[in-house]
């Protein structure tokens, strides 16, 4: 399903590799993204506690948070690896 | 009288070779005049020499800019009378040997 997205990402990644961003910069980027997803989760919980969100929407955002966190963690690991 | 056809749209942008075989102009426009029922070619115009000049043709309307020689020279169009141009090979139009397009 995500084959084309992957293809885009792959082409992007190959080109990106040519531009060589430092591992530190990439790790910093991944850390910011991780924090961003955690903050999204907190905001979601606040609004949910107020009863502002329908459950099916909460599930959508939760899934996005999980996928985003996993991606950020993977990036972080890739950046820290030698 | 021999009748031959030339595609006018393919003449546009063509380089005109001068007597010495060097490029003398580039056909940019064809001026017509009515004759009886028909329209016939009066002259060919060589145009601004490139896209940049084309873009800056509005400088013609700005007195200050018009006074810049570089611009005004390149924007001017030069006429080539119809009978100066030899179209026997439409792919390589040339000026008749006894003439020069700078007239």
């Amino acid at each position, binding site marked *: 399903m995500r084959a084309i997205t992957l293809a885009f990402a792959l082409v992007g990644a190959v080109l990106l590799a040519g531009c060589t961003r430092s591992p530190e910069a990439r790790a910093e980027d991944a850390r910011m993204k991780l924090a961003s997803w955690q903050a999204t989760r907190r905001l979601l919980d606040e609004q949910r506690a107020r009863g502002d969100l329908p459950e099916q929407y909460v599930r959508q955002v939760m899934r996005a948070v999980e996928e985003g966190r996993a991606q950020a963690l993977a990036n972080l690991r890739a950046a820290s690896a030698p | 009288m*021999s*009748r031959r*056809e*030339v595609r*006018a*749209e*393919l003449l546009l942008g063509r380089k005109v070779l001068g007597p010495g075989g060097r490029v003398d102009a580039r056909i940019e*426009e064809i001026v017509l005049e009515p004759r009886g029922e028909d329209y*016939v*070619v009066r002259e060919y115009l060589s145009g601004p020499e490139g896209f940049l000049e084309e873009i800056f043709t509005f400088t013609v309307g700005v007195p200050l800019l018009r006074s810049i020689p570089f611009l005004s020279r390149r924007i001017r169009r030069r006429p080539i009378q119809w009978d100066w141009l030899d179209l026997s090979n439409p792919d390589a139009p040339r000026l008749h040997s006894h003439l020069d397009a700078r007239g």
Partner: protein
Amino acid sequence: MNLTRDILDQQVVDRTGQRLGKVDGVILELRDGEPPRVAAIEIGPVTLTRRIHPRLAEWLGGWLRRHGPRTDGTLRIPWSKVRAIGVDLRVDLVADGTPARAWEDWLREHVIRRIPGSRQ
């Protein structure tokens, strides 16, 4: 009158106001000892493409002649049929049935009419 400014690439409209196409080409007739005369205008994708690349035009023409209505859709209109030159170029013709309409008609009959709601 200027050929590029006033004729070439202008919209061609028929007697009934239908759009035929753009003036994709202008045919000049060379005559000995007399100035070249505007003989005809031409409409069609092959004429248009020839201005970019002759080979591409040949290939396109071949393809168009082998598919659909089996015509490359080139329409040559003698200069004597040109009635007025203004915002559009008016010609004394009826667009329907000319090669310039062949693909439009073919697509209408074979594609558009088969899609629901095209006639209502």
